[in-house]
């Protein structure tokens, strides 16, 4: 016995000595650390500790605990169930609402080490197991499938009796993502997830926690694949359609508002031009008396037999005087006065803007050029207007010099209503194969006769029977020319749109010149003769010449009609050379072939191939004032002084 003890001591000393000789040092064990106790179901619990250094010697660990209000020290009943360095307390050893004081002791050959005591209450260390039986299904009842996640509480946790109350939480993510989407689920065991991405795989995990405790570990990942689906949201398409329609309507309204209603109306419903037939009684037409209407159109002495063109010289030029001057026409005793006057103030719808307030009046700027109202000294005065004597006319024209009254353009301009220039079908003397004697056509500008007393360059003698004045700018041939009318109608002639109103300058002593607006001088051109084949001889009346009348009578000037505007204008080519005859020769070909500078072109049905004779220079007639579409004959006839 003593030997044994001695032997052991010697051995241990030798061992220590050997170890010391070997350079190693033995030490008492380090203190165990981090004692963690957990209870999965609030019925049992387990404690784990972290052993310290063992000091190089085999070390044993022991766990001792004390319950509150008791000094009895108990040792851990089970070291094995929970694994290494653990202690398992079973149900019999577990008390709830009782504070445990737990200490772990490490022992080796050299010493002992006591860990720090840990106080636990089982109630507050509950960490359940993860939920079990996590199932995820894809519900595809509607166009929008969703996921339904369901699970069961961990087996050990007794939630049925209410001993443990668990709340759950789940998280989901796409397969290739890193971020989880966490959804708290409360105490329910079912959860729906919407807004899925089609044709993708999701990962789902669930965990739980008692009302006072720790979260469990996440359950195992459950994979679910969402099938491919196309969400057809009907309401979305309806919304898109409504929105698109709204946008289209908005743009349409904006476009319509920009487009002037007037233009639109004209675009959709172009105005129907009224009949501009001299002698055509609209009212009679309305009454239904066709016989009277057509009979009025028939002129007895058509075609004119006289070859002297002078017979057809119409010397009616009406000049609109300024406000303080009366209209020339007012003095007229012509039969047409009333009608004219009545129509003076009316603005024909067909006449366009020029009929009423056209600014395409020439302004007489020339020093000596004055507007004069030329009056016709026609043989037949039955249809003549402007009874005023040339002297009177001249007088008034002088007064109506636009130089003096230059302020408002309108007052000093000769307003040519479209009718003045508009070629009336029956006035298609050009179409006459042999219209040798075509009297001058008096173009009356109704607008000139408006109460404003606007000076007018030309006056249009009304026809004998023209009580109708749809177009104030009608150019009426003198009575002698009336016979031409019916024939013209029967002839192939200018198209309606190519009505050419003849504007002629009366040979008056008035030295008026109709000039282009640019020249600012007006000259009167007198239609001397209308030759066959669409030729109109214009006789310029040189301004400032007393005997212009005679001279004009003698001279003839041919001016080529450049273009004929659609029922509005006649563009004449002005011949530069003075003294030359100037006439208006209408040649459809030429007219057609030429385009005005302003673009006033009128296509005239060619009935005569005779080219124009005496080409004159282009009349700088067209200007912006003719933008209204009506050519002022005055402007057309802007001629240099002859």
């Amino acid at each position, binding site marked *: 016995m003593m030997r044994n003890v001695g032997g052991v001591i010697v051995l241990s000393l030798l061992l220590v000595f050997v170890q010391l000789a070997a350079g190693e040092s033995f030490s008492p064990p380090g203190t165990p650390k981090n004692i963690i106790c957990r209870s999965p179901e609030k019925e049992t619990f387990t404690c784990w500790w972290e052993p310290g250094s063992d000091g190089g010697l085999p070390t044993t660990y022991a766990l001792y605990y004390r319950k509150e209000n008791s000094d009895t020290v108990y040792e851990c009943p089970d070291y094995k169930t929970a694994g290494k360095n653990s202690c398992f307390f079973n149900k019999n050893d577990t008390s709830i609402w009782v504070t445990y004081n737990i200490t772990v002791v490490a022992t080796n050959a050299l010493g002992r080490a006591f860990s720090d*005591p840990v106080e636990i209450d089982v109630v507050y260390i509950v960490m359940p197991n993860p939920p079990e039986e996590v199932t995820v299904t894809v519900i595809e009842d509607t166009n929008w499938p969703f996921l339904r996640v369901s699970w069961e509480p961990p087996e050990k946790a007794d939630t049925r009796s209410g001993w443990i109350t668990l709340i759950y939480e789940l998280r989901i993510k796409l397969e290739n993502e890193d971020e989880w989407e966490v959804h708290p689920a409360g105490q329910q065991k079912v959860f729906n997830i919407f807004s899925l991405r089609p044709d993708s795989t999701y990962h789902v995990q669930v965990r739980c926690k008692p009302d006072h405790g720790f979260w469990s570990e996440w359950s195992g990942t459950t994979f679910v694949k969402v099938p491919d689906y196309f969400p057809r949201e009907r309401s979305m398409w309806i919304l898109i359609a409504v929105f698109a329609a709204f946008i289209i309507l908005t743009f349409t309204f904006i476009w319509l508002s920009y487009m002037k209603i007037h233009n639109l109306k004209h675009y959709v419903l172009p105005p129907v031009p009224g009949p501009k037939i001299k002698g055509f009684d609209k009212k009679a037409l309305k009454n239904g008396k066709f016989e009277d209407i057509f009979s009025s159109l028939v002129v007895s002495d058509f075609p004119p037999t006289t070859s002297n063109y002078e017979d057809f010289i119409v010397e009616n030029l009406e000049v609109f005087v300024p406000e303080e001057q009366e209209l020339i026409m007012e003095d007229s005793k012509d039969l047409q006065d009333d009608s004219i006057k009545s129509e003076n103030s009316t603005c024909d719808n067909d006449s366009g803007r020029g009929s009423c307030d056209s600014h395409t009046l020439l302004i007489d700027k020339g020093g000596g050029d004055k507007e004069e109202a030329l009056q016709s000294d026609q043989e037949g005065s039955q249809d003549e207007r402007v009874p005023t004597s040339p002297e009177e006319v001249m007088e008034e024209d002088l007064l109506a010099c636009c130089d003096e009254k230059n302020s408002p353009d309108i007052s000093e301009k000769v307003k040519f209503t479209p009718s003045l220039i508009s070629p009336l079908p029956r006035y298609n003397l050009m179409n006459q194969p042999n219209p040798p004697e075509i009297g001058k056509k008096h173009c009356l500008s109704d607008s000139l006769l408006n109460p404003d007393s606007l000076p007018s360059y030309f006056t249009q003698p009304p026809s004998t029977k023209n009580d109708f004045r749809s177009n104030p700018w009608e150019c009426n041939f003198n009575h002698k020319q009336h016979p031409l009318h019916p024939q013209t109608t029967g002839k192939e002639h200018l198209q309606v749109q190519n009505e050419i109103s003849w504007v002629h300058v009366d040979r008056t002593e008035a030295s008026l010149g109709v000039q282009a607006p640019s020249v600012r001088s007006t000259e009167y051109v007198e239609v001397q003769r209308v030759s066959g084949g669409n030729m109109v001889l214009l006789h310029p009346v040189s301004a400032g010449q007393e005997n212009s009348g005679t001279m004009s009578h003698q001279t003839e000037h041919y001016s080529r009609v450049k273009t004929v505007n659609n029922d509005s204008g006649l563009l004449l080519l002005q011949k530069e050379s003075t003294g030359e005859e100037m006439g208006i020769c209408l040649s459809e070909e030429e007219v057609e072939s030429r385009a005005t500078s302003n673009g006033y072109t009128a296509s005239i049905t060619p009935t005569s191939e005779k080219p124009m004779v005496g080409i004159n220079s282009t009349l700088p007639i067209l200007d912006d004032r003719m933008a209204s579409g009506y050519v002022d004959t005055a402007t057309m006839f802007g001629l240099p002084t002859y």
Partner: protein
Amino acid sequence: MDRAILLLSVMCLGVSSQPITDSQRMFSIAVSRVQHLHLLAQRLFSEFESSLPTEEQRQLNKIFLQDFCNSDYIISPIDKHETQRSSVLKLLSISYRLVESWEFPSRSLSGGSSPRNQISPKLFDLKSGILHLIRANQDAEELFPDTSTLQLAPYGNYYQSLQADDSLRRNYELLACFKKDMHKVETYLTVAKCRLSPEANCTL
């Protein structure tokens, strides 16, 4: 308002032929109230503990073991088995006693922050609710045998034994005990409720 609900429930109890549904609702109300009280106690305790230096925390932990809670005299089941073995009425009565035992000491807890001031009235309301529940379930159960235990607990002795030396320690004890007792009541009431509910799966 709580009293109104409770009164209404009592009236319904008297008239209705389905007392179980009413008691379930009353249980739910009581459980939610005690849960709130428990959370409050937990928060107060953790605040108090965090306000202490670490060293004192350890000391207090050690001391706590040697002291008693004022409600220790009340014998209550301390594990699941015992709890499930107890009847609903017993659970209710124990809960009632626990709550009642804190009615007086909770006034010492009051003062300072507003949550502390709410403890006493809430305890009172909870006590009334539990009493109603007891009366509602007492018909089905036999009369409580040991009515003597319903009397006021001799907690006054406890406080007389205590020497008001360390207010810090006392506060610590009060808060810890309060927290524990509230959790007890919560557990008992939850178990009692789940036992009475017809659904097997007591997840409410």
